[in-house]
């Protein structure tokens, strides 16, 4: 079939993700065997980049450093320093230096874990794991070594009966959502920690930012025994994370938030914010309602940086 059977407006719609899924899939299926079509698609993409001057966009200050941190967190075991990943070249030298200085304090402790993490990720890539599995290995909950700590590993592994490595990651290369009692992997991942001092003007802004976070949604429906283990593992992980801006520790106010709860409180995200003009920490927590047997609700707690007092408590 002549590649012209696919008109250019369809190529444009495909690049904009405006095609229905089945039509996009059909187009992608044709590309490997139709170099002319692929060439036209390349030309269309290049034209759109030139038309929008997209290569000349100026990202905000700190963009490279934040991107670096996020990717390190995906590749390594520490959301702030990313001990397990190779350094990323995207950050300016000064930012990288800052990151490396932060890392240095804990380098010895985590160097082995980081090496193993990188090796596991590499093996996963080479062995051609399915996309979803690879996502779980490399990203999402982090790689299999390090982060959650040895004592957390012991607790979780002992409870679930699975391998220690599966338990620590909170994710697995095996699919399935079976109960922990059967030795199946936990669905939980490590919390995401971001140091971006996001400005949140009001409750509506908080709700808009934190609704439907992937890291929170994947915790929902986790059985309570598994959730308790995940809560402990996540808390241990946060205690080990390096200070955020203004010397705030990610775990600084977590104990207070968990203290009065009879049900597991699993942090999905911890983030520095500026809420109503005040520096604060935002905790996105996944918990269970009274009487529930699994995690079933998400709430965000905005606590003031100075004394951990609550500035906003919002159920999402």
């Amino acid at each position, binding site marked *: 079939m002549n590649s012209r059977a696919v008109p*250019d*407006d*369809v190529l*444009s*719609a495909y*690049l*904009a*993700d*405006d095609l229905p899924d089945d039509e996009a899939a059909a187009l*992608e299926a044709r*590309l*490997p065997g139709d170099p002319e079509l*692929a060439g*036209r*698609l*390349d*030309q*269309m*993409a290049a*034209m*759109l*980049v*030139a*038309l*929008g*001057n*997209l*290569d*000349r*966009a100026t*990202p*905000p200050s700190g*963009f*490279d450093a*934040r*991107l670096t941190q*996020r*990717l390190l967190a*995906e*590749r390594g075991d520490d959301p702030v320093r990313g001990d397990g*990943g*190779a*350094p*990323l*070249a*995207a950050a300016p030298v000064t930012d990288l230096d800052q990151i490396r200085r932060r890392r240095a304090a804990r380098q010895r402790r985590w160097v082995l874990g980081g090496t193993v993490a*990188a090796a596991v990720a*590499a093996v996963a*890539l*080479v062995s*051609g*794991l399915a*996309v979803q599995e*690879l*996502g779980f290995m*490399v*990203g999402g909950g982090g790689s299999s070594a390090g982060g959650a700590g040895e004592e957390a590993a012991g607790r979780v592994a002992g409870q679930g009966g699975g391998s220690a490595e599966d338990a620590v990651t909170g994710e697995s290369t095996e699919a399935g959502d079976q109960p922990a009692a059967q030795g199946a992997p936990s669905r939980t991942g490590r919390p995401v920690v971001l140091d971006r001092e996001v400005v949140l003007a009001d409750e509506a802004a908080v709700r808009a930012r934190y*609704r*439907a976070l*992937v890291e929170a949604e994947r915790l929902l429906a986790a059985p309570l025994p598994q959730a308790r283990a995940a809560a402990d593992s996540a808390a241990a992980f946060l205690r080990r994370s390096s200070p955020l801006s203004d010397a705030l520790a990610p775990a600084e106010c977590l104990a207070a938030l968990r203290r009065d709860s009879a049900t597991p409180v699993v942090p999905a995200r911890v983030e520095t914010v500026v809420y109503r003009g005040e520096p604060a920490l935002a905790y996105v927590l996944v918990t269970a309602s009274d009487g529930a047997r699994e995690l079933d609700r998400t709430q965000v707690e905005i606590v003031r940086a100075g004394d951990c007092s609550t500035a906003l408590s919002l159920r999402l």
Partner: protein
Amino acid sequence: MAASDEALVAAFVNGDGGAFDELVRRHSRRVYGICLRYFGNAADAEDAAQETFVAVLRRASTFNGASAFSTWLYRVATNACNDIARKRARRPRNAGTDVAQLADVADPDDVLANRELRLELRTALQSLEPEQRDAVILHDVTGLPYADIADRLGVAVGTVKSRIHRGHARLAGALTHLRDLEGDPAAEPTDAIAPPTVQP
């Protein structure tokens, strides 16, 4: 000679983390630009750019090389933008201070006059039907989301998409024709065109 993007992807899939770093370095600004055009504000654009590279990290092994890596990445980026917009259940909007960074949207002709574009692109744009040209300029050059363009032009979002994609198709054809006339596909003037002609 610098490694091609495609070679870097292959190296990364085979365990070379440094190759991924280089891909990020090469493409982070462009990805941010794609996301900024989609959302029209820096905060959402940055989130989407991060999600784009996380997706690349996870899905690099699915890149089959049929198209260029940059094309594949473009699609991953728009996908990430759409995912974020859907999850947040809100339309991408231009927000506050960021709007000031955009060109004056009073008239697409003014926008075009104020932007640096390759000469051939400017010439090709002028060849479009007015409806398509306005939609393309507002979307691609100014960076307005579909919904805002629909409001502005008083038509449905679907109509805006149709005009934009058909406009892109016409542009692609016009560029091919221009290059054929020039006889040298590589001869692409890249300098900015003359100073803007601002309407009073």
